């Protein structure tokens, strides 16, 4: 009997790990984002990239939903997701606002020049202070903010086709349903 004991103990351990993997696939990304979901987006008033005399505030964006995409010229993953922003995301039917994060304005503009501009507007958070309120901890991240300024969805990490189909499209569809 005692010789079976190590095996039994290990099987308990293994099922714990199995549970861990399952838990991660279920919870990981949303678990981190959860504190902000269904909370009002923090109020902000940030300058437009390349034109510091103009600024965009949270209030000025109220009234229709928009996607807020956090990017930076130093961010490698952003290059990977950018082609999708240029095509799929742009045609989702909501505004796409660029949030330039901890970046040099000249480098950011050059980066947009090189990779294309899918954004209706780009706001610049040079020192990353406001991003703390948004709970940003790495680029890229993407937020869906509804017409009343409430964060409805958050994606940490690059957007993929899968994410668009399985998460972003349903989230936008849900917003459209509420309107009716």
């Amino acid at each position, binding site marked *: 009997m005692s*010789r*079976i004991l*190590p*095996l039994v103990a*290990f*099987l308990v*351990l*293994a099922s*714990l*790990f*199995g*549970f*861990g*993997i399952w*838990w*991660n*696939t279920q919870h*990981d*990304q949303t*678990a*981190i984002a959860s504190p902000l979901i269904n909370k009002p987006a923090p109020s902000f008033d940030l300058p437009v990239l390349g034109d510091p005399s103009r600024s965009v505030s949270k209030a000025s964006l109220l009234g229709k939903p928009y996607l807020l995409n956090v990017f*930076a010229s*130093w*961010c*490698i993953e952003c*290059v990977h997701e950018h082609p999708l922003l240029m095509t799929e995301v742009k045609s989702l039917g909501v505004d796409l606002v660029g949030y330039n994060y*901890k970046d040099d304005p000249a480098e950011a503009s050059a980066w947009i020049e090189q990779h294309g501009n899918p954004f209706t507007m780009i706001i610049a958070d040079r020192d990353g202070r406001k991003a703390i309120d948004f709970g940003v901890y*790495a680029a890229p991240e993407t937020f869906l903010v509804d017409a009343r300024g409430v964060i409805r969805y958050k994606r*940490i*990490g690059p957007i993929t086709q899968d994410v668009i189909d399985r998460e972003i499209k349903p989230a936008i569809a849900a917003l459209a349903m509420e309107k009716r």
Partner: protein
Amino acid sequence: MIPELGQLALILALLLALAQGVLPIIGAWRGNATLMAVARPAAAGQAVFVGAAMAVLVYAFLTYDFSVAYVADNSNLALPWYYRITAVWGAHEGSMLLWVFILNVWSVALAAFSRQLPPAFLARVLGVLGLIGLGFVAFILFTSNPFLRELPMPVDGGDLNPVLQDPGMTFHPPVLYMGYVGFSVAFAFSIAALLGGELEQAWVRWARPWTNVAWGFLTCGIVAGSWWAYAELGWGGWWFWDPVENASFMPWLVGAALIHAQAITEKRGTLRAWTILLSLFAFSLSLLGTFLVRSGVLTSVHAFASDPRRGLYILCFLIVVIGGSLLLYAIRAPKVVGGKPFAVVSRETAMLIGNLMLTTAAAMVLLGTLFPLIGDALNLGKVSVGPPYFGFLFNLLMLPVVLLLPFGPYLRWGRGEAGTLKSVALRAGIAAIACAIAAAFFVDGKAKAIAGVGAAVWVCAGTLLYVAKRWREMPRGRRYPAEMAGMLFAHFGVGIFVVGVLLSESLSVERDVRLAPGQTETVGGFDFRFDGVTETTGPNWRADQGTVIVSRDGKTVATMHPQKRTYARGQVQTESAVDAGITRDIYVALGEPMDANDIEGAWALRLYHKPFIRWIWLGGLFMMLGGFVAAGERRFRAKRVATAESVAGTVESPA
């Protein structure tokens, strides 16, 4: 084209691993010498092809081949060539490749240095190693291929994790893996013994040097990791009980227990099942370490959450390897009917107590490490246990070990003489108390420091007394056989380690201060003058570099340059400045500028005075040396002349 050759080499390695894993074991089972003979060349061939894959990856890094996704993610044009080589194991895919390559190195070494092993036994051992290699090469090919192309090819790559851009850190993973993977040899020996029904009783003796060397490497890797955390993280701590550290510490503890259990089994023929079980545990915990670090089960942020396939694969692999071996153990473990009985006062009793403490400590660390996961499973919310749990329980468990250490060599196998022990205890005890009292005057009566000095002197005096005894009583040339010398080194190392830990923890002065250029702060009797911050650049980083002049009684002791580096991708990395010494370290880390608008240019600085902290790693190095020296014992290499003791153990195995 070249990267595809790497992939091809891996596929060939996979096929050879399959051959190495299956044919020799069938051969040993059927008594077919031809099939058994496949083991050696297959092991060599697998090593050649995995080595070739490694070489291809190095080549891709050296030639900036950013069309390979792994190269693009982990290097860039500005990265110096030496870090481009070490970038090979800088992330998941490459480090798995390194893991297999080191497994191949061990297999080839085993094939080369085991001429004394019976062919059937060696065939089984190499077969088991082949199966492990098979699992890992398949893992690389199907879930973690480092040769995947990325098109269109990026103009420049990302960056090697700045954490790894440090000379000390470049060799930490390979050395650590030498230890982890090295336990696969002891594991394979045990499986071979279980498969073969232990017809060959001397296998424990042959397994011993391999276990010792693996443990030595693991010790070295842990010491390097601890030193790196101290120098780089900027907090001046040397051990944090975080999951990654624990993952390497658990096999170390079990490995230490295994070394001693193997000695008992070899000399006395008892505890055979326990020795087998410990070899299975040591390697299982190494695999578990790889799993915990690599699967994202514990650290769920970013890294692996994107690819649960890897976690799932490793889990299945673990179930096959660990579950399978434990099942084999349950069916075929030797029923110990004999062996020599244990006397109450004897060397084996002392070693058994040590064994139980070490394995309990490993179980305690495992429980603490998995606690957050258990919390999730039982729906307790996010819970975790920290240094207080580990620190308290670990010290408690190690207390008996430290108390027993000086007696180890004096105790005889099978019987002890209470008389000798009393005299040892008396002398070591008097030395320990005398030194502790003397130390009390220097450490302001701090109990922890006094205990540290007392415990260390107790261990070291006991060890040195035995060295002297051997010197007096034995003829030249027979005084210190390798096995004994290794044991004495390692035990002495424990003493050095204990004094380092307790003195540095109780006497350290750590101060976080705000200093403007020109200001001076006194910490631990040293005056630290801050001379401001200048900008400096390296090949792929720029840094704020502070200048701190350290002086004592007006005499300059050191000029220190702590840095705060910003790497290409924007990651920030502290480079603390350390002035090292035998009796103390002076440690300065640069924090943040107090305020961008502050005209004085003041910064937050961490100024530490850490007495005797170096002894922690010195003790570790002594233990490592002990492992390596003991492996050189000539008896381990002897042919099948079973010692009288090991034959006398009556073992009945269900064959």
